[in-house]
């Protein structure tokens, strides 16, 4: 039966040669190589749940009066977009689970992307010949972040509407072109009736198309170049070791998809996320205000933190202003993504290493790269935590001013300290193979012919003649090789 089907397809598409090669294709099995897959499956969940939501969501700013099951908003004026979100949550059966799965999946998607990007960075997988894939990957990261922002802003609730206002003001602050950029992108002065529909087009049509297309390219390049692998016995720059695509790798991958979806489904039903009915509709024309404890979704938190700890400085000259939000809100991300894009080429220039690499570094093998990466992570982590400065202030009952000033200092101190600590830890790990924080867990000993025990020196492990090697004794029995 399978043969008949295969032949039917092959007669029309001539795919048998490709299929034969594909079936045997080898994929390395290290667990850290699957983090990108986690992200990909989160994207699949986003698309599936997203399509479902588009059947019910109304992307319009028209004002409607709510009459529905949620009594605390009975008779309240709100946009049709917000009202349709309430309907999805309270009136569409399984709507709330779909909506929550969609949002949880987005948060986890971004987290998986960050971990994946770090894995690629710290193992040097972006080096030749994979620079193109790195560039594609960074683009995917940026597009996904933007799509997440547009997505949660579609709901037009108080919390996300505040975020849209912030985005508008950042656009406005861009020198020379800012006013036009803001007016053209958002459709006029803030607020207006345009931007929900625009965000919808971006979030549902344009950005997903770009993301899926670039993901396709990302996977195709990976397929063509074959995956990298860690160093190990029997592995060289010219070979690849792992499991075959069929049946082993495919089954594991599909299994991972089910597990990822299971986790998202469990969260989607059991853990509430973005309870927009509690926040209320966004209505900037009324007195409704932003509230204490307003934060964006986590992956935008670093930008919000930068806005918070930036001191009140501005450039004013010759009748023009470069407004304060420009520096943390536009310049910082510009530099961030610029450096990210340029990294493989920067590293190549500084290390003068133009070789192709299919074997990965362990982070300790590249102390400066690892230290720079950790320092950068600490920089963005400080910014990210600073985004919650008011929540931290009320948690610890201290003044937000104190917390903010603390972060203003840490933002310089933490990366510097992290750099030096990491670099020296890498060097000591690479040299001594002993963890710099813990020392050795134990030591290996051997029995001397006279019956005592002595420690094996790692650097000089040659045993005495006739001595029994302790490590031989502990290994499990293996059947002798069959010839």
């Amino acid at each position, binding site marked *: 039966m399978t043969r008949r089907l295969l032949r039917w397809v092959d007669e029309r598409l001539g795919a048998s040669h490709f299929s034969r090669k594909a079936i045997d294709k080898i994929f390395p099995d290290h667990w850290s190589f699957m983090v990108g897959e986690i992200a990909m499956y989160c994207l699949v969940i986003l698309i599936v749940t997203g399509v479902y939501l588009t059947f019910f969501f109304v992307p319009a700013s028209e004002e409607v009066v709510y009459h529905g099951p949620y009594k605390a908003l009975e008779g309240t004026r709100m946009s049709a977009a917000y009202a349709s979100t309430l309907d999805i949550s309270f009136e569409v*059966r399984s709507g709330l689970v779909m909506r929550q799965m969609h949002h949880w999946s987005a948060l986890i998607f971004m987290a998986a992307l960050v971990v994946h990007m770090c894995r690629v960075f710290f193992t040097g997988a972006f080096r030749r010949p994979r620079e193109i894939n790195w560039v594609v990957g960074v683009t995917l990261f940026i597009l996904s972040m933007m799509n997440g922002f547009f997505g949660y802003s579609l709901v037009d609730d108080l919390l996300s509407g*505040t975020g849209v206002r912030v985005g508008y003001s950042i656009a406005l602050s861009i020198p020379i072109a800012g006013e036009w950029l803001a007016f053209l992108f958002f459709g006029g002065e803030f607020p207006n009736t345009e931007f929900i529909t625009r965000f919808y087009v971006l979030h549902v049509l344009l950005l997903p198309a770009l993301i899926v297309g670039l993901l396709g390219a990302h996977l195709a390049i990976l397929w063509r170049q074959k995956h990298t692998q860690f160093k190990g016995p029997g592995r060289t720059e010219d070979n690849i070791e*792992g499991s075959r695509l069929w049946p082993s790798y495919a089954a594991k991958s599909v299994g991972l998809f*089910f*597990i990822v979806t299971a986790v998202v489904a469990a969260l989607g039903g059991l853990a509430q996320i973005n309870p927009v009915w509690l926040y209320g509709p966004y209505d900037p024309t009324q007195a409704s205000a932003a509230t204490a404890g307003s934060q964006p979704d986590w992956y935008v938190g670093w930008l919000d933190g930068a806005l918070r700890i930036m001191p009140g400085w501005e450039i004013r000259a010759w009748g023009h202003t470069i407004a304060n939000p420009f520096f943390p809100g536009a310049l910082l991300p510009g530099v961030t993504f610029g450096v990210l894009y340029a990294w493989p080429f920067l590293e190549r220039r500084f290390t003068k290493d133009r070789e192709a690499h*299919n074997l990965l570094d362990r982070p300790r093998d590249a102390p400066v790269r690892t230290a720079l990466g950790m320092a950068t992570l600490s920089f963005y982590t400080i910014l990210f935590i600073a985004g919650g400065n008011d929540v931290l202030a009320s948690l610890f009952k201290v003044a937000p001013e104190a917390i*903010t000033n603390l972060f203003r200092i840490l933002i310089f101190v933490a990366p510097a300290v992290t750099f030096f600590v990491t670099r020296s830890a890498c060097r000591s790990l690479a040299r001594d193979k002993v963890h710099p924080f813990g020392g050795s867990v134990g030591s290996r000993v051997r029995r001397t012919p006279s019956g005592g025990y002595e420690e094996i020196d790692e650097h000089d492990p040659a045993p005495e003649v006739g001595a029994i090697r302790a490590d031989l004794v502990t290994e*499990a029995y293996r059947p002798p090789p069959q010839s």
Partner: protein
Amino acid sequence: MGGRPGSHADGRALDRNQRLMPDERGMPAEGRIGVLLIISTVAALGLALVYIGGGQPQAEGALLGISLGGIGVALILWARGLSTEGTVTAERGPLGGDPDDEEVVEERIEEVTDEPGRRSVLKLFWAAGGALALSAVFPIRSLGPAPGQSLLETAWRPGARLVDDNGRPVRVDTLPVGGTLTAFPQDAEHAADSQVVLVRVQEHLLQARPGRDNWTPQGNVAYSKICPHVGCPVGLYQADTHELLCPCHQSTFDVLDGARPRFGPATRSLPQLPLSVDREGFLVAQADFDEPVGPAFWNRG
């Protein structure tokens, strides 16, 4: 092609995770897979019943999670059993193509550009294409109105009464000392750039800026509610220290000193609305703000 059953390509033993063996409790792997799939099926049926019965988010999420998870774990366990050969190794093969192919492609491309006559025509093609691309950008202009004056003025006019969010005009004595409310221009309540925060303080505490002595009848002082940082409504009034706090990024403004920024990323004071009292005792604006409200921009000056 390396590798033999049950071990890595170089003869190292497969670790436990990669071999499909009955575990110490004695249940064969197929048994475990079977149990998982039965649980998964039951959960899926349960999910269908919950949906038919009206739906309940927690039950839906939990049952869906169990059903999917059961299949997923079963697949992984099954995958291990399928793999009879452990890990395998193969040669990568070169990435670069045949240099002959490259040469032919290069020649064919340059055929077009080599002859002198063709080259100048090509340049004209580029120029025409560039001009077309440039003019094709222009429809973007239709996306929004020109900024014009809209950022420089609000809906406040001389004599406009202040109304609260219920539409009621605000009297000079509506607020007790220490009170606050948000106000809008009458007949323009939906102008989102015009909202002001009205605060009443003890008159002798106010330090009026030059020229603003008559802007605060009986201790009522009104400032634009739109934060000059990124535009959040400055809605938190700390009555004991007379400070307005913006919740977004903690900019703090001193109400007694013309809303000067005391802390935070805001660089400018909140614009102040000049107030007076009309004949019937209602608060009115003397004029629009004397500077643009809200976040700064290139042409703000």
